[in-house]
């Protein structure tokens, strides 16, 4: 395997953005900038930026710790402190990191939160996670409850509930911590910028309809969502990133090229797969390589939609700032009911002309995993495509069994081959 993922301009840009962000964070104490910890799904980045606050996303720190092989130690640290083996490993990784000095992904110390902004959407664990952090940091928490799309649609009462909490509870809390009044014009500007970046991201997702696909919408996709799902949505740097990414994709389409992977360009694309569920971070590159070696390209994935399903039409709308933020929070992937999730995947299979469906079921994430076996069964019935089901974990290295996963996938690829021959 190559030592480094082949670098493209967009990747350089992203690295720079992240580096600068963490540097700013590490200096927050000296500069007096206030820090808000919040979650990726349903994140209110534009609102946070409108107050000139600095966002921190504990899930991102956890996944970065996973990729840097630090998560195992952190998780054990949390378990030593009395946390159960059975629960979400992101939480334990985060708490372990905190106990070991809160050194962030760039090696610099993270500032403690001035506010915990609990956007309680799509996952029950979020609520417990911030209750736990509140005990650690003793800082205020503001709870934004986002109802679940149990009927597969957003109702007027749900939208109003979230918008009202934003106005009545979240904005005052942000005003308090920042010492500033909300500047609604600034918020609108940020939202308009978000929408432009979102247009480019959708273009990138849809490019996977090409054959060969110029992107890998899962392994590559997790890099593509970095800026838009975290601290940058709403900023010019985010727009610039997606413009550049789109340009690169256009270049690859024009030259009939596949995506860039750690093993170089994926030229031979034998199978096109849709993926459900988060990736494994501790063995991310090994995991990717299994697919690369078999000529598998991921043409669509659900994990890359946890922070917004833009390709289904949603855009941040500066004309309705609170309502649009409410719809954004309500619309994230795991906030949709299982029938809706099945519909989304079935649509991907059809639109992206996929050969199969892969479920990576995450041991400690009930939000994604509970019910996935049934989803898979429904999808096989509806699409006639073969599905594969593997199990791993996000950041707990104890739960990634490379040999098992490889075996299972090899038989799956053989099945796809047999299906193709029979067709």
């Amino acid at each position, binding site marked *: 395997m190559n030592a480094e993922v082949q670098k493209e301009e967009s990747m350089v840009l992203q690295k720079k953005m992240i580096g600068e962000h963490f540097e700013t964070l590490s200096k927050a104490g000296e500069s007096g900038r206030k820090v808000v910890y919040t979650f990726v799904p349903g994140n209110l980045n534009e609102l946070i930026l409108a107050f000139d606050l600095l966002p921190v996303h504990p899930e991102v720190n956890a996944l970065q710790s996973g990729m840097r092989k630090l998560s195992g130690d952190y998780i054990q640290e949390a378990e030593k*402190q*009395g*946390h*159960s083996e*059975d*629960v*979400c490993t992101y*939480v334990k990784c985060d708490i372990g990191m905190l106990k070991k000095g809160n050194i962030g992904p760039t090696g610099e110390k993270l500032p403690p939160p001035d506010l915990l902004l609990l956007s*309680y959407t799509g*996952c*029950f*664990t979020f*609520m*417990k*996670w911030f*209750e*736990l952090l*509140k*005990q650690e940091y003793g800082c205020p*928490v503001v*709870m*934004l*409850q986002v*109802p*679940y799309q*149990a009927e597969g649609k957003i109702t007027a*009462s*749900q939208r*109003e*509930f979230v918008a*009202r*909490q934003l106005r*009545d*509870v979240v904005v005052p809390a942000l005003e308090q911590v920042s010492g500033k009044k909300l500047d609604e014009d600034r918020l609108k500007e940020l939202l308009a910028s978000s929408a432009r970046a979102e247009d480019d991201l959708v273009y990138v997702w849809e490019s996977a309809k090409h054959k060969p696909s110029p992107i890998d919408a899962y392994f590559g996709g997790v890099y593509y969502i970095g800026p838009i799902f975290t601290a940058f949505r709403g900023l010019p740097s985010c727009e610039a990133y997606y413009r550049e990414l789109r340009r690169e994709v256009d270049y690859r389409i024009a030259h009939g090229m596949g995506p860039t992977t750690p093993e170089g360009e994926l030229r031979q694309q034998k199978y096109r797969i849709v993926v459900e569920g988060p990736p494994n971070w501790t063995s991310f590159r090994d995991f990717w390589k299994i697919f690369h070696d078999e000529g598998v390209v991921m043409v669509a994935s659900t994990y890359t939609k946890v922070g917004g399903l833009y390709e289904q039409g949603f855009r941040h709308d500066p004309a309705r700032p609170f309502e649009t933020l409410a719809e954004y929070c309500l619309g994230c992937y795991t906030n949709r*009911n*299982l*029938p*809706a*999730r*099945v519909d989304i995947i079935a649509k991907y299979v059809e639109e992206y002309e996929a050969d199969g469906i892969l479920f990576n*079921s995450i*041991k*400690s994430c*009930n*939000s994604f*995993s*509970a*019910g*996935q*076996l*049934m989803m898979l069964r*429904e999808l096989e019935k509806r699409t006639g495509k073969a599905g594969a089901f593997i*199990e791993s974990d996000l950041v707990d290295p104890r739960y990634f069994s490379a040999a098992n996963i490889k075996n299972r996938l090899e038989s799956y690829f053989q099945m796809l081959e047999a299906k193709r021959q029979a067709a």
Partner: protein
Amino acid sequence: MGTQDIIDRCERIYRDLDFGYVHEWKARTGGKAVGFMPVYVPRELIHAAGILPVGIMGGGDDVEIIRGDAYFQSYICHIPRSTVELGLAGKLDVLDGMLFPAICDVIRNLSGMWQMMFAHKYVRYLDFPQTFNDAGREFYRAEMAELLVDLEALSGIQATPERLNASIALYNANRRALAELYDLRSAEPQRVPTSELYLLLRAGNVLEVSEHTAMLQQYLAAARVSQRPLRDNVRVVASGLFCEQPPLSMVRAMENSGCYIVDDDWVLGARYQLHDTATGANPLGAIVDAYMSDTVATATRYVEGDDKGAFLVEQVRSRHAEGVIFAAASFCDPALLDRPMGQKALADAGIPYTAFTYSENTGQVQVIKEQAGTFADSIKLWGAVA
């Protein structure tokens, strides 16, 4: 009737996974029945629409999981798989609908599975606000009003304010009888063995509320005069068992380990509120108010402010308990994520605790008995656990 006859009846109801009582009640009254998952649903609304609310608590240790395991990976708690098993085996056909309260992601996703599996049945997910302010109140009121419209359509009976008030009064009486039962157990634990109290609670999942209240009163009268010796047991609170229920054998094992359980959080939906719901001109509003401002602090409910764990500490104090047993269903996110916070609050208050996990079909109750026994012994010896 003596306590034993009542408890025998409760145990028959507990073991009857065909829901014979519900069949019989429907035949007798011509009414409908709607199931609900633990923890809390406003049973008053269901009752007022002429529907029997039926608490579904998985299959316990009596159901063999054959189909349910094909629906859930091994690292998901047990209650959804045994509930699916009951559903697929047709044992829940007697229910005209199912309600899935917002407890956790497993129950949330189970609601979607139910929508797909039983497409012809009424299925509703009940979102409970976790923000206890005006926005939350209005949202909840709208949710409840919608639920009521659905229930009325299902039964063909209008839940008029009179009917709502009558149902509220019946559930108030039931909660009072349960509170009396809990108080008696705490005051004289030898008179109300925990396994009996547990069976009485479980019967309340199924029986029509007035019938259940009458049963509780009969039991209370008989228990007050029962002759059972007081043992030198340690008084403990059991915490974390609000959803997937422990098997009866485990409840008995805990009780026979040298512990008197003097408070607990199983079958919590029946005791979710602390006081009466008001009756009057605005019964729906009163039900909403009761949820918003008068409920227990459990893991599935967001606790604002700085008093995480205070409720548990208070429970220990008011019941004069000497320690806490944290028991959680394996893989139960709400209970297990909450536990370190409860433990911290107890440690700060100098209250000893022990912790273990179980599942509804746990066979190894001996291990649990030993652990609870060791805990009881150490409290007796040292007054605390090292």
